[in-house]
């Protein structure tokens, strides 16, 4: 492993608040220069993990290394990381320039150099001309930019961001997402980004750690998480998903045949499956990977349309299949599919899929 593969190394890190275990035991590596997101529902421990990286919380066990340096006993003001707080924490008694230059005092730079650095930052976050404004009279988006500039001016090895876009309205949030991505590319600093918004994490990140209940469920690229979720929890958290139980019928050479009761049989690569004949296998399939037909076809499963909903670029269809308790969710792109949209609720439909559209999940 090259050193940059594990720029931030989190080893068996756990955190207890009294008897409450906020972080159970997390081990993962974050690479140099990547945009890494912590994704999970509120209360799953994202902020706690981030605050341990910043030094505001001490792990109750485990080690944190940044760029090869042990961090456990390093106080926040000596760590090579900076943070953008959820509330931004802009100093209300200072103007924009003084906020951005706050961390420069210790560097004892000549005044001109200092001013140059601040100007450069103002430009980077597109706040030219705002330097002398009072900081408590600015909008949410502007405060957020100040918080970014104030942290980036110190050229940290890692920038930590705690739901920085959470307080912004939708349009501004989307605009800031683009900008954040541009910023991260141009400064090349490792970003560790906390969010509970899966779409945000998917658009921004190089890699994502999906968290739940103080644990990391899976660390992967956005398309890895979407296409190859390992557990039911991850699969359900990102996008929508149909879950189906299969049974191993036979194993021949590299292939296993799974019986899906009402859905017939499918063939999957047996390498993914460590189990024996007769065992249950949790499977998942994305709604857009199921084909919806109006007429019967070779190998298609019959059902009836219960519900349809129009979502602009896509339409969603909930289909009842005999012998299956859950409705099957199917989605189609709305380009030239007016035929399908015209389907009445209650109509007979047929479902078809490729065997490799099924994802084999870990058992848990």
């Amino acid at each position, binding site marked *: 492993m090259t050193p940059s593969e594990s720029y931030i190394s989190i080893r068996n890190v756990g955190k207890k608040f009294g008897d409450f275990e906020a972080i159970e035991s997390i081990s993962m590596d974050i690479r140099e220069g990547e945009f890494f997101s912590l994704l999970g529902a509120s209360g799953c421990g994202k902020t706690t993990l981030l605050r341990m990286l910043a030094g*505001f919380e001490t792990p109750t066990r485990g080690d944190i290394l940044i760029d090869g340096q042990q961090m456990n006993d390093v*106080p*926040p*003001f000596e760590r090579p990381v900076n943070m953008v*707080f959820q509330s931004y*924490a802009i*100093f*209300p008694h200072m103007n924009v320039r003084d906020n951005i230059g706050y*961390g420069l005092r210790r560097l004892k730079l000549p005044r001109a150099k200092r001013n140059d650095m601040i100007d450069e930052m103002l430009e980077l976050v597109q706040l030219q001309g705002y330097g002398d404004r009072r900081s408590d009279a600015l909008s949410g988006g502007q405060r957020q930019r100040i918080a970014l500039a104030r942290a980036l001016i110190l050229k940290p090895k890692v920038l930590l961001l705690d739901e920085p876009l959470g307080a912004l309205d939708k349009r501004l949030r989307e605009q800031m997402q683009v900008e954040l991505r541009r910023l991260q590319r141009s400064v090349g600093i490792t970003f560790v980004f906390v969010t509970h918004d899966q779409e945000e994490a998917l658009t921004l990140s190089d890699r994502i750690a999906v968290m739940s209940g103080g644990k990391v469920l899976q660390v992967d690229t956005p398309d890895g998480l979407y296409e190859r979720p390992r557990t039911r929890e991850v699969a359900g958290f990102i996008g929508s998903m149909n879950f189906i139980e299969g049974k191993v019928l036979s194993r021949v050479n590299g292939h296993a045949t799974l019986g899906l009761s009402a859905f017939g049989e499918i063939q999957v690569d047996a390498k993914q499956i460590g189990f024996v004949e007769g065992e249950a296998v949790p499977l998942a399939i994305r709604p857009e990977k199921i084909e919806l037909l109006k007429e019967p076809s070779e190998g298609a499963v019959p059902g009836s349309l219960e519900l349809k909903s129009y979502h602009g670029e896509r339409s969603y269809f909930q289909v009842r299949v005999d012998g299956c308790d859950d409705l099957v969710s199917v989605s189609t792109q709305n380009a030239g599919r007016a035929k399908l949209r015209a389907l009445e609720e209650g109509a007979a439909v047929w479902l078809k899929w490729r065997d490799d559209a099924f994802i084999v999940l870990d058992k848990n």
Partner: protein
Amino acid sequence: MSDVSYIRRPNRVLTVYAYIFLIVLYLPVLSIPLFAFNDSIYVRFPLQGFTTQWFVQLWERESLWDALGNSLRVGFFVAALSTALGVLAARAITRTRLPGQSAIVAFVMLPIVMPGIIFGVALLVLLSRIGIPLSLYTVTLGHMIVCLPFAIATLLPRFEGFDKSMEEASADLGENGWFTFWRVTFPIVLPGIVASLLLTFTISFDEVIMAFFLTGTEPTLPMYIWSQLRFPREFPSVLALSTIILFVSFIMVFAALYIGRMGLQKNDR
């Protein structure tokens, strides 16, 4: 008027009540400046004519200036010490999780409602047991007990009103605890500190009960006034002195309230 909520609507009965309340409260007080300018040593109607001679008399009284000096010295010390301790206490209360925190806060605030005479007697007994002679130091000590809860009560809202992540941001940007205090915490709570200084100084300056028990040979101004009440001829100049004190106290308390609120409304937005 429709944009004014029910609870904010002007209420005539309450307004009248407020005015009557203020008149009843301050009418007796107003008689002090009134008689201070009256050309008679007797405090009674009808007024005898306007004079400033009582103020002039004050000017020439050496012992009064000594007493004033004592009160100012005690006041400065009490204000500085109780505000400094108040800052530490308010910080501790808002920034750390102490077990039994609300009980501690209640005990700290207790002197506001406890009769001063109890603390006065208790301190007197204690000091004489340990053998510490009464002096301006003991008065200062007594005043600290009276003033500290007021200092904390003035400072707490300032500390509660600002985001803890402000201090964390400073640490994150490389400043240690000391510089974080000077560059972030102190400027943000400064109005509260000024308000606390003014308020505690005023309280100490007017305080009688503690001073009564704890004064040694050097009287504070209120003690001096008290001693002068025995001499009817001195009474008008006591009134003149009270007038001045009243005036200065008013200004200081209003300044304290005004400064204390400064910035708080801004943060509410």
